[in-house]
């Protein structure tokens, strides 16, 4: 079948309803749904089977396509986001164009969210199948578009995860740009003294990797640089990087004479402020690149005026250049790995621990710098108050983790980090008494339990129950810890010389910048979300972008490195192929209807549609189009066909959904990336909500034309929900702003017509906010119940007669 030729052969649809074991069959009467499907127009065969996605299930479809000469296939099972590609492939293998396949989501959006309403769930499943069958009848065959993949990668973040990912990709033979915000790569791992459970020296094992990354012929290091803009799509990203000036050229030999001469000092960030640095400095001795850098916020020389030239005079190689300017570099890459790392919890938020008030209460990160031989004290663990080695030390666990006052999650690394730190103290100063106050000790990894046992054997005292308060003795600056030992059910009051707060890991405070630039999702905790928690743990929902390290969730060095190699492999697969197929969802212009008004060109987020001045008609630039369908929703003449999501198909879905009991139903339009994914997430999490909602998937909420809303009301629907990504997070740059504009306009129109505008709801929901969507549907029940038959009738008439006239 050709894409453009109208086929005259009769439509023959096969419907396959999946039990998914008891996942669907547990709350949906699958046999009844299949029987019902058989009665629908154009359906020639309808079957149910335990697992449609199994080999046998796939064979059933393939055989039926041949036996019954099927030219459309509908599978009612899980989310199309999960097995859509599987069944499309099955169709293709049986010689049926994959665009002639449609899916009804009766698991994530039906059986799992209506676990205890078997009847309602079965009715809803029937409706969903009916909607899919109606859409299927209108499907058109199409051909995938092939686009080349640029064989270059961008790695954002030069911590251990970013370095590993960059090295793996570079060793495979791809060009890699490694962008780091700080003056040196190395990240958090460079700050740490030893690693658990093997007690390797952190910088000793990291420094060679940093040097490798710095010298690798395939790696271009861009330090002191930030990503400012990203455009394009999988395989073809255009990235703008702002390279801030170092004011020191590559001629620098890192001798340090300049820093000696510099009269300005400030706390060094690398040493968490425990040591000083100069305005011209290198963050730490192993820094890569080794080139010094001038901190212009501190330097006396401002824009164009050289007030102080002491560093210039000290530099024999004349490597200092105050005329350096910021540079904007444009990169073209095929894949992107996000390894932006994490921040640490600031314990001043928990005043009962006295951090910031008592000098001898320190954080675990400060401890790492104190115990490090290269640190400000040369590796001597000293009390800040009197610079003496403490006689006793207490570690407090879960500071900022597993708590309602701070972050609810476990930070993964702090238990083992404390055990390692305790052993380090015992190694240097065996006489120091060590207490660890904990909630639970989580020593789950390879070699972790051994280390825990060793710490107990060395005499580290583990006390279950965090102190309620820390009180300082103002004379000695010793600290009293008061709390309850929950194992022995008794109160404790223990005096120590020093307290180390085992602080948790937090998402980067500026992660929304990267989130916006790359259109990623974040969990409620703020870490970047993976495409699938089990099966695609390093992919993001955005094609061609992968995650590594603490940007995804708190994790230790080993896990970060493992994930980095995984992300490099995933990116490598794309680049090795050198091309990818893009779905045929770009629009077609019906030239006979187009009047060349240019409204579509104004709403396109990608400038992918333009007016051909000769023909005075719109034309689509295929390569730039991302397929959101906002243009089709804007066209007042219906001259744009959004392929796979055409007006007729969506209207047919609305018709099917409103055929029965429309006055009790909510018609919901959900965008593929956030709202529909959020609805799937609600299903995965088994969040229960009323069964009277019928979800129609579009690529973007910007595809939702006012005439769809109008049609749903004209058909007697009680309420309509339009749901899309949060403003600024739209998968199609800003297409959802058009959604907002259209919905607001529709509200005004409803008011003019004397209709209650609450019946049309607009919701921004991210892929992680299943709860938000579920609560909205619950909340809308009040509206559904309050709608009177007269109101429905009035709405029907208002939109049935005035609909066309008032449109636009």
């Amino acid at each position, binding site marked *: 079948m050709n894409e453009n030729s109208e086929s005259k052969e009769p439509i023959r649809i096969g419907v396959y309803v999946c039990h998914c074991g008891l996942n669907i069959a547990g709350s949906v009467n699958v046999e009844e749904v299949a029987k019902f499907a058989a009665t629908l127009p154009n359906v020639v065969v309808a079957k149910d089977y335990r697992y449609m996605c199994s080999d046998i299930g796939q064979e059933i479809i393939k055989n039926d396509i041949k036996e019954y000469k099927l030219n459309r296939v509908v599978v009612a099972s899980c989310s199309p986001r999960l097995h859509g590609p599987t069944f499309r492939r099955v169709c293709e293998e049986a010689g049926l164009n994959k665009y002639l396949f449609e899916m009804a989501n009766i698991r994530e959006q039906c059986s799992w969210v209506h676990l205890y309403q078997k009847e309602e769930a079965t009715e809803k499943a029937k409706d969903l199948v009916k909607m899919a069958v109606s859409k299927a009848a209108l499907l058109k065959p199409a051909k995938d578009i092939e686009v080349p993949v640029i064989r270059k990668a961008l790695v954002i973040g030069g911590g251990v995860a970013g370095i590993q990912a960059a090295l793996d990709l570079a060793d495979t033979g791809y060009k890699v740009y490694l962008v780091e915000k700080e003056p040196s790569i190395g990240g958090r791992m460079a700050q740490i003294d030893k690693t658990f459970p093997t007690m390797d020296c952190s910088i000793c094992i990291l420094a060679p990797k940093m040097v490798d990354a710095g010298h690798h012929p395939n790696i271009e290091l861009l330090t002191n640089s930030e990503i400012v803009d990203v455009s394009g799509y999988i395989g073809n990203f255009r990235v703008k990087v702002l390279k801030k000036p170092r004011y020191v050229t590559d001629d620098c030999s890192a001798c340090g004479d300049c820093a000696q001469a510099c009269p300005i000092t400030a706390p*060094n960030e690398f040493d968490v402020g425990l040591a*000083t640095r100069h305005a011209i400095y290198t963050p730490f001795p192993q820094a890569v690149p080794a080139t010094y850098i001038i901190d212009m916020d501190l330097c*006396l020389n*401002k824009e164009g005026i050289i*007030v102080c030239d002491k560093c210039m005079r000290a530099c024999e190689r004349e490597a200092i250049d105050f005329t350096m300017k910021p540079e904007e570099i444009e990169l073209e890459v095929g894949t992107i790995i996000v390894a932006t790392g994490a921040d640490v919890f600031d314990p001043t938020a928990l005043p009962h621990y006295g951090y910031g008030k008592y000098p001898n209460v320190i954080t675990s990160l400060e401890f790492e710098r104190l115990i490090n031989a290269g640190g*400000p004290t040369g590796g001597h663990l000293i009390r*800040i108050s009197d610079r003496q080695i403490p006689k006793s030390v207490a570690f407090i666990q879960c500071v900022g983790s597993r708590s309602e006052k701070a972050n609810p999650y476990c930070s993964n690394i702090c238990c083992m980090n404390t055990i390692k730190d305790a052993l380090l103290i015992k190694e240097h100063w065996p006489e120091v008494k060590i207490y660890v106050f904990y909630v639970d000790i989580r020593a789950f990894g390879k070699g972790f339990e051994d280390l825990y046992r060793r710490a107990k054997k060395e005499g580290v005292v583990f006390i279950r129950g965090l102190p309620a308060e820390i009180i300082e003795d103002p004379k000695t600056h010793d600290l009293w810890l008061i709390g309850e030992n929950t194992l022995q059910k008794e109160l404790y009051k223990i005096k120590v010389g020093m307290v180390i707060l085992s602080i948790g890991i937090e998402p980067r405070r*500026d992660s929304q910048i990267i989130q916006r630039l790359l259109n990623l999702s974040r969990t409620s905790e703020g870490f970047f979300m993976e495409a699938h928690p089990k099966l695609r743990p390093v992919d993001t929902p955005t094609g061609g972008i992968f995650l590594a390290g603490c940007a995804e969730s708190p994790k230790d060095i080993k896990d970060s490195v493992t994930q980095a190699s995984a992300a490099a492999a995933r990116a490598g697969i794309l680049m090795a192929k050198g091309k990818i197929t893009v779905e045929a969802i770009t629009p077609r212009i019906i030239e006979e209807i187009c009047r060349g008004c240019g409204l579509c060109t104004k709403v396109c987020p990608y400038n992918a549609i333009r007016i051909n001045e000769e023909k005075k008609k719109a034309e689509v630039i295929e390569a730039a189009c991302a397929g959101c369908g906002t243009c089709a929703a804007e066209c007042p003449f219906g001259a744009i066909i959004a392929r796979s999501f055409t007006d007729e198909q969506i209207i047919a879905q609305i018709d099917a959904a409103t055929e029965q009991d429309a006055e009790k139903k909510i018609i919901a339009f959900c965008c593929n990336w956030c709202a529909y994914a959020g609805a799937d997430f609600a299903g995965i999490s088994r969040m229960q909500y009323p069964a009277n909602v019928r979800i129609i998937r579009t690529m973007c909420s910007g595809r939702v034309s006012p005439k769809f809303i109008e049609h749903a009301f004209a058909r007697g629907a009680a309420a309509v929900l339009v749901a899309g990504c949060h403003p600024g997070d739209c998968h199609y740059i800003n297409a959802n702003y058009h959604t907002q504009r259209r919905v607001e306009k529709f509200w005004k129109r409803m008011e003019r017509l004397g209709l209650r505008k609450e019946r049309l709801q607009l919701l921004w929901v991210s892929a992680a906010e299943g709860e938000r969507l579920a609560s909205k549907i619950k909340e809308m029940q009040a509206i559904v119940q309050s709608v009177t038959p007269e109101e429905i009738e009035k709405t029907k008439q208002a939109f049935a007669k005035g609909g066309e006239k008032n449109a636009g």
Partner: protein
Amino acid sequence: MPVRLWREPLDKEKIKKPIAEIHIIRDNCKGCGYCIEFCPKNVLEKSNELNKRGVHFPVAVRPEECVICSFCSAVCPEFAIFVFEKVEVDNKNDES
């Protein structure tokens, strides 16, 4: 690395800050104010007194802040201000 830095660095006293000796030839000053305006550490201010030329010459109000960049001497049109590093006169000769 956005960690809040609030502690006094432990090596603060080890950092040797040069002590400045600021010489102002007050009667050569014509009161242009360049030195006051351009000092990056805001060490200088206009005095209340007048000199022979009848202008308010500068005084070092925050000499401890001076980092001896000598930019004041560079901009002074009258060569009326000079800064030297004060030589330590105490007996214990600190060799480190």
